[in-house]
């Protein structure tokens, strides 16, 4: 995974609350292979009408916001399903940081596993940032080391779980870390089996 240190990019305002994962990527697109890219499905039904034409009132379709890598939105972003495809859609579109007052728990953890920063700001600061973007500011700078966001004349602090911050700053992948504990895990499993013999499923798995 690419480390995330800081980002200076076009920021797109999405002044909506509760943008759920069904909005981020409708379920009907999830049969596609990731290799084909999920970016065109991001917020599909808020961006395109029934005929597939772009809706001009959708923030992501604003010509000035093309190439946005930062999304600024309201509370409870990414609530709903565990579909990591919601994060794939954001990442494949080019978004590397979402700024909001709160996020769905599963979404945040999926985001971090894909190098996408879920930056938490206060409700008040979120509105201030949405306002400067609405008033014409095009870009924002997000510094994960300093936990700071700049846009126009605004300077805000944000939070992210310290564990996730370290992981993002270093671009760590959990699996490599876990594999360094292989023998500890094996030992746990052995002791646990004696401690909780009832845990093992009682039917033999008959592989099909």
């Amino acid at each position, binding site marked *: 995974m690419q480390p995330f240190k800081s980002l200076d990019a076009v920021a797109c305002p999405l002044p909506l609350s509760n943008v759920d994962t069904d909005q981020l990527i409708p*379920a009907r697109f999830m049969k596609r292979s990731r290799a084909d890219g999920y970016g065109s499905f991001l917020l599909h039904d808020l961006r395109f009408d029934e005929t597939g034409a772009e809706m001009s009132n959708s923030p992501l379709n604003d010509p000035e916001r093309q190439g946005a890598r930062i999304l600024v939105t309201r509370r409870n972003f990414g609530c709903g399903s565990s579909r990591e495809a919601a994060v794939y859609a954001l990442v494949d579109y080019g978004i590397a940081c979402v700024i909001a007052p709160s996020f*769905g728990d599963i979404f945040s953890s999926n985001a971090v*596993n894909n190098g996408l920063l879920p930056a938490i700001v206060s409700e008040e600061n979120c509105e201030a940032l949405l306002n400067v973007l609405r008033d014409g500011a095009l870009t924002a700078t997000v510094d994960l080391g300093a936990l700071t966001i700049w846009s126009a004349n605004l300077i805000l602090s944000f939070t992210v779980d310290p*564990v996730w911050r370290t992981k993002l700053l270093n671009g760590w992948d959990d699996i490599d870390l876990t594999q360094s504990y292989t023998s500890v895990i094996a030992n746990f499993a052995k002791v646990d089996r004696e401690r909780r013999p009832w845990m093992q499923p009682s039917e033999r798995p008959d592989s099909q």
Partner: protein
Amino acid sequence: MYTPNRKHVTLFDKVFDAHVIVEREDGQCLLWIDRHFLHEGSFHAFNKLKERSAEVARPDLTFGIEDHYVPTRTRDLGRIDPAIRGMIEQLRGNSQRHGVRRFGLDDPAQGIVHVVGPEQGLTLPGLTIVCGDSHTATHGAFGAIAFGIGASEVAHVLMTQTLWQKKPKRMRISVDGELTPGVSAKDLALSTIARIGTGGAVGHAIEYAGSTIRSLSMEGRLTLCNLSIEAGGRFGMIAPDETTIEYLRNRPFAPKGEAFERGAQYWLALASDADAVFDHEITLNAAEIAPVVTWGITPEDASPITARVPDPAQIPDPARAAQVRDALDYMDIKPGQSLTDIRIDRVFIGSCTNSRIEDIRAAAAILVGRKAKVPGLVSPGSMLVKKQAEDEGLDRIILEAGLEWVDPGCSMCVGMNGDLVPPGERCASTTNRNFRGRQGPGSRTHLMSPAMVAAAAITGHLTDMRLLMREPVPARD
């Protein structure tokens, strides 16, 4: 590590602590995972395994279930959309390659993962259970730590049978008193979400407690825990008790004989200590809960059926007023109108929330001897639920009412298999999410209990099922 002599410990902590393999200074814990359920959407994770040429660490603790994309009107894959067939075939190929037990369409126990797990005794108290599905907290009804994970985490569990987690905060939702006739676990869940909001339990593990919860059947408890994520909670749990133990005895994959008794002893000791401390406490009075419906586009947009649609002009908080205005606009309903004046176009009874035998019985009790005014689909949660319902004659009641009785799957809850609500139509649904377009592009969803959906089917509009209540349908031997 779990030490039985500690005091003030919650149910969540007891189960969590017993699974900690490594605890880092920053609070990250490497957790042992006891059960891992896969479905057709798990192909992303298997692709990650392939990239690393990795194997499934514990196929004996991993189970594949065909539910998210399966057809409900035919079991013949030759007759369905090739893209959907491809999803099912990928799960079959991956399960076979890695020696994972699969509950496929030809299996007499096939069904929705959160129905099959408990039914088969794969779900047990005191376990850690994960699945790439946000409604995995359903299994918490047994006193398990069960939670939804994304594809990267699915791959991690496949490769290591572990997951890194930081302990969440603990929230207790206590409900006391008796639910009034006709009021179900679904009404209790929606009332709770309306009270605390869709983000109310973010960052928290919920424990449901109190006399009302203890008197719920396992089916009711499953419905309640299922909806934890709709309040933002990744985990929802209920302490194991005699109801739990009795449900599990003689289930196919549950321990047998001496091992079961040893398990039962362990499980009953998992209840939160009397003086356990929670970060957040919510209390509800069961007697005050009425049948509930949603009118908006998030599950918190829920009100008792006797109420009126809220008027954004009367809501002091401008942000909330804007949300309500937006919701009513999408749903095409008017501020201040009676909820019972909202006409519907179709109904759906099914999903991991409400497709168990009690749910089918509750719907049939309203439908018996009546005709539905609108079309609708009833999809039991598993082949075993289907068979039991048919043995009880419930399928005939449903068919005679004019609704379709189909095979199990996630179906119209999420529409992945092609069971969709057409654009602009309004569906009374026993499912879990009324998100914009969830049941199909442009669809409008009203969430409610199975009996409330049945009542809406009969009248063609949202209806207080208590007005249509009769004696329960007697079971046929």
